[in-house]
């Protein structure tokens, strides 16, 4: 590893991954998690150039609906205009910069900045009556007084993304094979999917890339989440072992997914005895509808298998005992904000919605039996990196020489790191 720390010209980025496919060794420099310059470069080369998750179509279901959200460190408005067309604007007044909408969500035909009263139609157009002489006659002929539009907004199967780079490739190309996973998730219900209730907004005192790794890490589950599996085996009345048969999907573009069968029940649609006979009939109906809509083979994959998916750089869609959408953004090298939502099937019964939410809360979120322990693990790792000079490398080699990867290998993380490295090291 000598040489990797050799002095580089200022414009070059010292390689931070060691990817030796012959030996089966993959390492990540711990400075990648703590260095301020790395974060600055990530903002420029990753968050300002990649497609970032904005929200789900169900969050702005009706014309004039809006949500406000911080994406990639910038305050945005995601809304529908009077005709129902979706828009993404920077939530900042073109006059002096204040947020023009400070509520998290609502329905509004216009936005008005409270600072000096500038107002805008919900298609972004300046809509303020000014007295003659206040401004030149042709003021706003160049659009300077309209809300600034995000360079690119595109959706796929109800999942909306933004890109701050006007020259970015299309979302379709960017998502590459991750589209197949979004298709699976979007196909759970006959009438589509929706965000269920509140957003969980929390934070972790750790580098954001640790949460990418953790969210698709099949290796840590048994050790980190022993108390969850204790609970689960009693809840389901039997051993709570993860299936040995699993898959790792390199979805290209830095996206990856692990897929496998697990002992928990799935709202769509894997019944467990603990749910009772009445629920079994309902699960059977859900399964039958699914089969009639997507075919038996695909229905089996959707219903029986679970999948943890990372879409580069910072979107996680875990379709496991429930579906969570999770995105996160670094405020500092050692601090990230996390936003997480539950995704459910539109029109599902109250009883099934409750079961879905129970499944979610048993494992996921700040009060779940698992997520807090993940946070502790990530924060413990971050603290460990203080010794990066002496203990310089993380090992991500597990299963690297295997013919066919399994979910307890670390290939899915290597997919992320190779793309991260490519974007960070590229001469641009």
């Amino acid at each position, binding site marked *: 590893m000598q040489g990797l720390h050799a002095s580089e010209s200022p414009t070059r980025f010292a390689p931070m991954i060691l990817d030796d496919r012959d030996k089966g060794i993959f390492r990540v420099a711990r400075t990648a998690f703590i260095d301020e310059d790395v974060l600055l470069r990530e903002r420029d080369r990753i968050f300002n150039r990649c497609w970032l998750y904005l929200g789900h179509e169900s969050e702005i279901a009706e014309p004039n609906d809006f949500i406000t959200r911080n994406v990639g460190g910038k305050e945005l408005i995601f809304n529908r205009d009077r005709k129902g067309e979706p828009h993404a604007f920077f939530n900042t007044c073109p006059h002096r910069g204040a947020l023009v909408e400070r509520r998290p969500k609502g329905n509004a035909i216009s936005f008005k900045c409270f600072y000096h009263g500038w107002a805008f139609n919900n298609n972004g157009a300046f809509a303020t009556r000014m007295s003659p002489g206040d401004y030149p006659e042709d003021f706003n002929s160049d659009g300077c007084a309209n809300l600034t539009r995000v360079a690119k907004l595109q959706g796929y199967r109800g999942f909306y993304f933004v890109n701050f780079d006007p020259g970015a490739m299309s979302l379709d190309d960017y998502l590459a094979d991750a589209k197949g996973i979004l298709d699976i998730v979007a196909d759970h219900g006959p009438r589509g999917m929706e965000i269920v209730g509140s957003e969980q907004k929390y934070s972790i005192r750790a580098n954001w890339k640790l949460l990418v790794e953790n969210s698709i890490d099949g290796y840590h589950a048994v050790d980190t989440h022993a108390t969850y599996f204790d609970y689960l085996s009693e809840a389901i009345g039997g051993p709570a072992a993860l299936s040995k048969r699993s898959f790792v999907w390199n979805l290209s573009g830095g996206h990856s997914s692990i897929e496998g069968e697990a002992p928990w029940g799935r709202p769509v649609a894997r019944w467990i005895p603990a749910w009772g006979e009445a629920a079994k009939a309902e699960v059977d109906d859900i399964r039958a509808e699914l089969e009639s809509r997507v075919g038996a083979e695909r229905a089996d994959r959707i219903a029986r298998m679970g999948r943890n998916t990372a879409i580069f750089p910072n979107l996680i869609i875990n379709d496991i005992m429930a579906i969570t959408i999770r995105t996160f953004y670094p405020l500092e090298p050692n601090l990230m904000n996390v936003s997480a939502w539950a995704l459910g099937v539109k029109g599902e019964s109250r009883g099934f919605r*409750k079961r879905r939410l129970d499944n979610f809360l048993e494992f996921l979120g700040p009060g779940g039996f698992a997520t807090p322990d993940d946070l502790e693990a990530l924060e413990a790792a971050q603290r460990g990196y203080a010794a990066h000079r002496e203990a310089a490398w993380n090992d991500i080699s597990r299963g690297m020489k295997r013919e066919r990867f399994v979910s307890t290998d670390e290939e899915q993380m290597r997919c992320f790191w190779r793309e991260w490295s490519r974007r960070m090291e590229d001469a641009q």
Partner: protein
Amino acid sequence: MNAPAAGASAAIEKPLSRADYEDFLYNEAALLDEWRMDEWFALFLEGAIYEVPCAGAPDNADSSEDLFYISDNYFRLGHRVARMNKESHHSEFPHSSVTRMIGNVRVLGADQSGVSVGCTFVTHRSKNDVLSVYCGHHRYVLRAVEGRIRIVSKRTFLDLNSLRPQGRVSIIV
């Protein structure tokens, strides 16, 4: 899950004095501060529920419709308590230091399920040299059973706009 099924009987529960409920709440807080989790769990009647909606949720938040942080039935609460006592509960191992202040205790009403009691709280949690503050209000349904006050339901509302920077609710707030 909002209608507490536990301990329901035909008669409207007769409220005790506010001082009785204050004593109960202070004692409950002490059990949690001292990590006497089994004794704390014993305050709950069988069939009781314990819920923590997301930060800023209204008092009528419904765990069948909205995503919470915690929505425990009696069975899951028992496991939460068991988890609190395990070293493999990594988030709380070693245990965080916690202290709770209870105030503004009010008797809000009574029906067949029990007496509604409300209070405000400030809970401090210190772990890994980080101090987290949780503030909000609790809503209880309480019943007197064989001379002891017992919990039919406890709902904890965090009067915060998000869980930043606290990050987690791995303690009983």
